């Protein structure tokens, strides 16, 4: 192999290794940050003394993972909904669902920019996009429960 080509190949490999190391560092930092957000989510979704597990993960822009919570012999699913609108609003809501996908409760967790809630008692109607996010989460919970029931039978 000509010397120039060999030198170029070595240089390419060296840069590829360096970028691979950089990618590993970024992945490690991202995983650490994700672990922290996971702990925070669990903190305000799971009541103390309840057993929990991650029922499923999703690529939906509004929610990433759904918890399955067992407390007092009752089962429910919970997730955080992140809603961002074109009108400058960004909200984080905590939602809980029954195994059938019915919305049990919606709680205001936080907001940024213009996240003003006109009626805290009716978050679904007060927040643009909340209804669609709740509906998608409800469908996902129904699918999870159906999959779990199918595996159990």
């Amino acid at each position, binding site marked *: 192999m000509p010397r120039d080509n060999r030198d170029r190949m070595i*240089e*390419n490999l060296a*840069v590829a290794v*360096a*970028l691979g190391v*950089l*990618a590993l*560092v*970024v992945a490690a*930092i*991202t995983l*650490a*940050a*994700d672990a*922290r*957000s996971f702990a*925070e989510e669990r903190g305000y979704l799971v009541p103390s003394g309840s057993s929990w597990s991650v029922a499923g993960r999703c690529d939906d*822009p509004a929610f990433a993972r759904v918890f399955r919570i067992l407390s007092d012999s009752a089962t429910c699913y919970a997730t955080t909904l*992140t809603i*961002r609108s*074109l*009108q*400058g609003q*960004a*909200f*984080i809501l905590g939602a809980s669902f029954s195994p059938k996908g019915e919305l049990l409760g919606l709680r205001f*967790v*936080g*907001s*940024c*920019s*213009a*996240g*003003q809630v006109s009626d805290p008692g009716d978050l679904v109607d007060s927040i643009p996009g909340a209804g669609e996010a709740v509906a998608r989460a409800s469908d996902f919970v129904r699918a999870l429960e159906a999959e779990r029931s199918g595996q159990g039978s």
Partner: protein
Amino acid sequence: MDRDGFVPNPVLAGLVGICPLIAASRSFAEGTAYGLGAAACALALGAAAPPLRSSVSDRLQAPATLALSAAVALVFAACIKAYSPAIAAGLWVYLPLISVSGLSLYALRRSYPSRRSEDSLATLALESLMFLLTAASAGALREFLGLGTLTLPTPGDAPLRLTAMASPPIRILVTPAGGFMLFGFLVAAYRAFVPRREGQ
């Protein structure tokens, strides 16, 4: 005609990096976070430029620079999510696009001649600070005039928000169209008030 500052040509600036800036800076908190991220990217690239130039051949400097900018943007995004999930939710998909603004901030100043003879990190830091102030002030203007509030970049799920007006006068400013309008006025103001070079 050549002007100082990080926007040498508003048309050129419109082609690189300004779209995510407009979309992201909808409030003071989001604009500050975005500007800080772009500044961090640009400074990281400026600090890595001398060792890159000495150790990597010319054909590999562009991909290495791009990878470094993307890595810094992703690390910054993870830090923002840990600092304030609410601000991260507001920035949403524009967090990774911080790398675009950082790259353009770093590359644009190298594409036109500077009055200073040396290519110093201090100059890049000053221009990054200008970018941060521009992003933060644009976000503050848009939020104040468009929604009547001012969200401070405090940590946690609910950043501190100051309410100034019950009925904000120009609601369109918080939309992307309003953002472009505001930046048009800012560019016009920049061209009107920044002195031209002598003889041009």
